[in-house]
C-alpha cells in the first residue's frame, strides 16, 4: 500500500517535470511562460517539502497534478491561444477562447478537495465550516490571483490596459473568472457532501494524520 502510494507520487512528479520540460521547449510567449511557472513550481516544492509530516491523500495529489497540467498547457500556449480553446470557440460560437475560464472553474473544482483535506488535517473543523471554508479559500485565492494578474498586466504591458491577454477585452473578466472558480468549488463541495452521505464514516482527521 505504502509503496504503491510512493510509486503513484513519483509518477505524478515525473509527469509534472516532463510536462514542464515540454512546455519550456518552445512556449508561445517565453515571458508569460516564466511568470506562470513560478507559482506552480513553489507549490510543487511545498508539497514535496511537507509530504513527510503532512501527507495528503493520493486523490488530492492526483487532483493537484491535474490542475497543474491544465495550467501548464495554458502557460505553453498563453491562455488565449490554447488550441483546445480555439477549437471549442469554433465548434460552439462563444466569441472568445474560453480555455482560461474553464481552468478557473477547474481551480475551484479540482483544488477544493485538497484544501478541505488540508483543513481536516490541520484544524479541528467540524460541521458546515469544513465545507464553507474551502469554498471561501478558493474564492479568496481567486481574488488574489486577479489582483496579481492586474499588477502583472500593468507592469508588463501598461499600454494594453484591459485588452491584455488575460481578460481578452472583457470588463467583467475578473468577476466572471472568480465566479467560475466559485461554481467549481461549490460543485466539488456538493459532490463531496453527496458522496459522504452515501458512504458514512468519518474521513481522516487530525488524530490519525500521523501515519
Amino acid at each position, binding site marked *: 500500500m505504502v509503496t504503491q502510494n510512493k510509486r503513484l507520487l513519483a509518477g505524478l512528479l515525473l509527469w509534472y517535470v516532463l510536462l514542464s520540460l515540454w512546455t519550456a521547449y518552445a512556449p508561445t510567449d517565453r515571458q508569460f511562460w516564466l511568470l506562470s511557472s513560478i507559482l506552480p513550481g513553489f507549490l510543487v516544492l511545498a508539497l514535496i517539502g511537507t509530504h513527510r509530516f503532512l501527507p495528503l491523500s493520493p486523490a488530492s495529489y492526483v487532483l493537484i497534478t491535474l490542475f497543474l497540467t491544465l495550467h501548464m498547457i495554458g502557460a505553453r500556449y498563453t491562455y488565449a491561444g490554447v488550441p483546445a480553446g480555439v477549437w471549442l470557440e469554433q465548434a460552439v460560437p462563444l466569441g472568445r477562447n474560453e480555455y482560461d475560464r474553464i481552468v478557473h472553474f477547474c481551480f475551484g473544482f479540482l483544488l477544493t478537495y485538497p484544501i478541505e483535506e488540508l483543513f481536516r488535517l490541520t484544524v*479541528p*473543523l467540524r460541521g458546515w465550516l469544513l465545507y464553507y*471554508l474551502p469554498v*471561501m479559500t478558493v474564492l479568496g485565492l481567486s*481574488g488574489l490571483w486577479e489582483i496579481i494578474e492586474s499588477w502583472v498586466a500593468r507592469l508588463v504591458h501598461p499600454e494594453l490596459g484591459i485588452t491584455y491577454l488575460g481578460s481578452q477585452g472583457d470588463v*467583467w473578466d475578473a*468577476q466572471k473568472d*472568480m465566479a467560475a472558480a466559485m461554481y467549481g468549488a461549490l460543485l466539488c463541495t456538493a459532490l463531496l457532501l453527496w458522496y459522504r452521505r452515501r458512504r458514512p464514516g468519518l474521513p481522516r482527521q487530525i488524530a490519525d494524520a500521523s501515519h
Partner: protein
Amino acid sequence: MNRTKLLLGLLLWYGLLWIVLAIAPRDRQDWWLENLLALAAVATLIATYRRFQFSTPSYLLMTAFLSLHAIGAHYTYAEVPFGFWLQQLFGFSRNPFDRLVHFSYGLLLAYPLRELLVRLAGVKGLWAYYLPVSGMLAQSGLFEIVEAVVAQIVSPELGAAYLGTQGDEWDAQMDMIAAFAGALLCMVLVVISARAGWTNRRGRPASPDRP
C-alpha cells in the same frame, strides 16, 4: 451590565443614523440595494445574539462599518460629499469614498471574522491569521461578482460606466486590494495587541467584559 448598555447604545446609534439617512436618499433604488444586506446582517446579529455573542470591540467595529456603509448608501457611493472633499484635497481623479469603505471593510470586519473562526471553529495558530484575511478577500470578490451581476441586470448598456466602477477598468481589482490591505493591517494590529498583552492568545480581550 456595562456591556449590555453599550451594545444597546450601539444599536440605538445605528437605528437613529439609519432612520436619518433613510430620509430622501440620492437614489432610492440604489439605497434599497445597498441596505438589503446591511439590514440582513443586523437582523442576523440580533437573532443569533443568544447563541453567539461577539466581544464588545467586535460589535464596535461592526457598527463603525455599518455606519460608513449607511452614509455611502444615502448619497450613493460615488457622490458622498466627504469623498469629494478628499478628491479635491488630494487631487484624485475620482471620488475615493467607496475605495475607503472597501478598505474599512477589511480593516474593521477582519477582527470579528477572526473571533468567529477562533471561537466557533477552534481555528488556531497561523490559520487564525490567514483565514480572516482570506475570508475578507473572498467576500470582497463575491461582492464584486454580485456588483457585476446587478450592474448587468440594472443597466446593461452602461457596462463599465456603472456607478460602482466610475469608469475604471481595474476597479474590481483595486477594491479587492483595498479590502485585502485592510484585513492585513487588522491582523498586524491583532498581533501587536496580543504581544502588548491587550488580548489573550485566543483573541479575546484580556479584560473580563465578556459574559
